[in-house]
């Protein structure tokens, strides 16, 4: 890659894909509620990378422009909000059930 072909959007997309997939697998396999939360963060970050890549003027002559960055910022902010809520849920769950294992959260009545 080095010196042969310039870094392109595809490269960024590949990294984004890896982040997305690891995040998704993380969400599926982790039993710890916070582990699942980390998976979500990875997924969001993968998506963010795509937005920024499409918006970058260094990677493509015809870029998405500033919109990519703006959307990425929204994603970051929403991820923060989501983390706060998820953490609150996790802690609440932990308080009520004395465990953090999501597999134990199989009752709806709480």
């Amino acid at each position, binding site marked *: 890659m080095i010196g042969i072909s310039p870094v392109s*959007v595809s490269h960024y997309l590949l990294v984004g894909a890896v982040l997305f997939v690891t995040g998704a697998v993380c969400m599926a396999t982790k039993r710890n509620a916070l582990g699942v939360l980390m998976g979500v963060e990875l997924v969001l970050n993968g998506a963010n990378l795509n937005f920024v890549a499409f918006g970058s003027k260094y990677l493509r002559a015809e870029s998405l422009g500033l919109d990519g960055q703006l959307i990425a910022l929204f994603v970051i902010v929403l991820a923060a909000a989501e983390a706060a809520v998820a953490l609150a849920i996790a802690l609440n769950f932990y308080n009520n059930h004395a465990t953090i*294992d999501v597999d134990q959260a199989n009752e709806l009545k709480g």
Partner: protein
Amino acid sequence: MLLAAFDWHALFFTFFALLTCGFAVAVLFSNNIVHMAFYLILSLGASAGLFFLAGAEFVGAMQLMIYVGGTLVLLIFGVMLTAQSRFISMETRSGEWVMAIIVGGSLLFLLATAALRVEDWRSGHPNPAKVGLAESKTTTQIGMGFTGVRVDKLDPDVVGSPLVPGMSGYLLPFVIVSVHLLVVLVGAAYMARTKRRATSTGAAA
């Protein structure tokens, strides 16, 4: 001179991309929740590096500040609050692993194919050297964009600066997100609020 032809962008991209992916995979395969959090920090930090490389300085700094400095501290705080020895390592069942790897592998394959499919995406900038450093100076434009004014969409060559066609400002989403954040904060504070139990003497007996 070989050195002159050296593509620093590619080198740093490879470096940060490997860090990002490597630590993301480490998050996946680690069983210790604290280690997972640590790897996540590194992964997200390295992806901030990728943002910087892509010319999104503001987003990169934002990623470091809000994501790494804020959200992850919150997350680690949660980890520490709930980190009793029996929760630090929770093994994933092997059956789940197999399923997850199969599904994840196919998803990755799909995404990778899609990413490499489009010719326009695969070829880099025809002449990146022409793109000035000023392209990364997007702070003001982002700020204006949030308030609904798209200075980057002004046509510089026309006197009077009409907007070029495309998406316009983000004022409404910005306000919605602000309200959303407020609601979330209140909600999170409500959910994790102090529980007051009846004192042991009366109720428990």
